[in-house]
């Protein structure tokens, strides 16, 4: 996922010097794309945060810090904290469910492995909104789950499952679980089985072999999976609206509402920039931890 152990060999170093400006033509298209579609828009976003809103959207060019001060109101701070909490819960649940899944898939025969992987990505072949509506059919009071529970006599009254924060967690978890499984599978599948064998030969029981060999080596994959799940889970606004019934607001909804309902572009930009900053910090944290895990023991 991140650095490979070969980077310190002398040959590579010589290579790097020889390469010089050679990567430029290869990097240029990507860099240009990032500048035009990432750096400039984010810059604009930052610029917007310091001005007043126009009545019909847009900006009034009067410098102000109001948008950043407004962010500190308990109302909005609460939504941000709650979104982080919700995304964290979704990420941990995805890890708890995704790890054993990825581990099991990595241990399958090649034929079954392919089938299992197709099954994991299969939901992506259906439109995101359609899958979300499917959950509404499953969870609502007259839905299949409630009908089944009542049919089995487990409950007399339908249980309210839809339009709750828990339903949002389930919806987000379902949506992003494959993003946890795939990087985990990739790192588990690349594990050299001889390392585990060596641990066992040296007397480690299976649990210890897992704990000291497999787990640390799969950690970068797990961290990548966590970021892949956390980032979209925190910024999703469709699921809170459809499955949460618009009653539980996440930061993604706040951003959307500022632009489309409130026409308050500067505050929407402030929220969006804050969201971007939080997510970049998460990614920086992930790569830092990941680097420590992979390189740390070797140095020590």
């Amino acid at each position: 996922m991140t650095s490979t152990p070969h980077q310190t060999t002398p040959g590579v170093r010589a290579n790097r010097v020889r390469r010089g400006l050679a990567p430029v033509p290869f990097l240029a298209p990507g860099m240009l794309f990032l500048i035009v579609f990432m750096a400039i828009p984010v810059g604009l976003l930052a610029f917007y945060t310091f001005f007043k809103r126009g009545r019909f959207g847009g900006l009034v060019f009067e410098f102000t810090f109001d948008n950043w001060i407004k962010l500190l109101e308990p109302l909005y701070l609460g939504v941000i904290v709650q979104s982080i909490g919700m995304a964290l819960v979704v990420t941990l649940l995805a890890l708890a469910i995704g790890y054993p899944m990825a581990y099991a898939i990595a241990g399958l025969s090649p034929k079954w492995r392919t089938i299992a992987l197709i099954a994991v990505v299969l939901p992506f072949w259906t439109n995101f909104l359609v899958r979300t509506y499917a959950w509404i059919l499953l969870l609502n009071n007259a839905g299949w789950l409630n009908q089944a529970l009542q049919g089995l006599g487990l409950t007399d009254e339908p249980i309210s499952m839809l339009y709750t924060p828990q339903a949002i967690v389930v919806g987000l978890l379902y949506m992003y679980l494959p993003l946890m499984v795939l990087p985990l599978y990739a790192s588990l599948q690349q594990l050299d089985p001889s390392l585990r064998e060596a641990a066992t030969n040296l007397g480690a029981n299976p649990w210890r072999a897992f704990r000291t060999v497999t787990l640390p080596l799969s950690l970068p994959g797990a961290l990548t999976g966590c970021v892949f799940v956390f980032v979209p889970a925190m910024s999703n606004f469709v699921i809170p609206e459809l499955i949460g019934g618009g009653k539980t607001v996440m930061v993604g909804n706040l951003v959307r509402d500022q632009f489309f309902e409130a026409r308050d572009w500067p505050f929407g930009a402030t929220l969006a920039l804050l969201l971007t900053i939080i997510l970049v910090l998460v990614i920086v944290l992930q790569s830092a931890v990941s680097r420590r895990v992979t390189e740390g023991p070797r140095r020590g």
Partner: protein
Amino acid sequence: MPTTRRIVAVAAGTIAVALAATSCSTGGGEVDPSADITEQTLTVSIWADYYPEDLAEQFEEATGVKTTIVNHTTNEDIVAKLTASADSGIDVAFVSGQYAQALGEQGLLAELDKSLIPNESNLYPEALELDYDEGNVYSEPYAWGTTGLCYRPDLTGYDPTSWNDLLNPKPELEGKTTMLSTDRWLAMPALKAAGHSLNTTDDGELAEAKDQLLKTKPTLLAYDDTTFYSKLVSGEAAMVEAWDGWCNYGIAEDPTIKFVVPDEGADLWVDTMTVLESSKNKEAAMAFINYILDPKVQSWVAENILYKVPNQAAMEALDPALIESYPTLGITVDELFDQEVIVDLGEDSLKYVDLNSEVLATN
């Protein structure tokens, strides 16, 4: 009154012609009733699923004007498009009355040349006296209606009569009601229940409404602006705040569903057609509006979208069986005018925007 206005309008139109004759009529210029509209092209922005699918072809066949129809989802959406640049490329925009007022005040709309819109005479006289645009200077009404409670008597066990039935529901109805969350319709029930105007700009009255809405929020099944009627049909909800026309979509699937305008009153909303000042095809745009006001065309809205139209000729020709099935179509113009017209509040409209943001963001 309307006749006088029309004479004035015709006179104004004539002056406009005279002016147009002397000035070169380039883009965004004056209206020239003698312009050859078949050389113009038209871009119309309208809410999705709110017009006959073949409307562009129909109009093209009738007038020879090449027409493109684009969709917007909300008033905010189209207003953002119209205000983002000097020329949005849109000639005719469908917006609610209060937005037509705001856009008109900003100078973004062209004054309608009534000599190009003779079908205006098909409208109810009242449809020319709406507060947001007296005399239909900038806008012609497309559809109108009110907002009330759409409910299933078998699930509520009684017939609600007040906004308080929704705002402070009986314990057995908690978790079985939905409210609209968009624009002015979120605050409206709370304002009306307290006896305030739905156009109030009084901070105290708005704070009172906000408190009520925050108290109501935990009792709701959901906020829902688009699928509330299907929640009634499925039995998830027993009572929902609904636009009269949309309640009909529920009635279409379950004829026991009923609609009531609460005793405290509600709004009179109007969806209108406007011509942009930036349009280079104003004559074709006004011909389009005139085409819609033809009773045969406008009746389509009542028959298919199940919204009332302000077109007297179209409404009087409506099949009585349709009104029997969908009683909201039978709401009379007098009854409609007992409700309060939503008007734009200028800078104060931001108070409503903030109220919505705060109510919706409170978890």
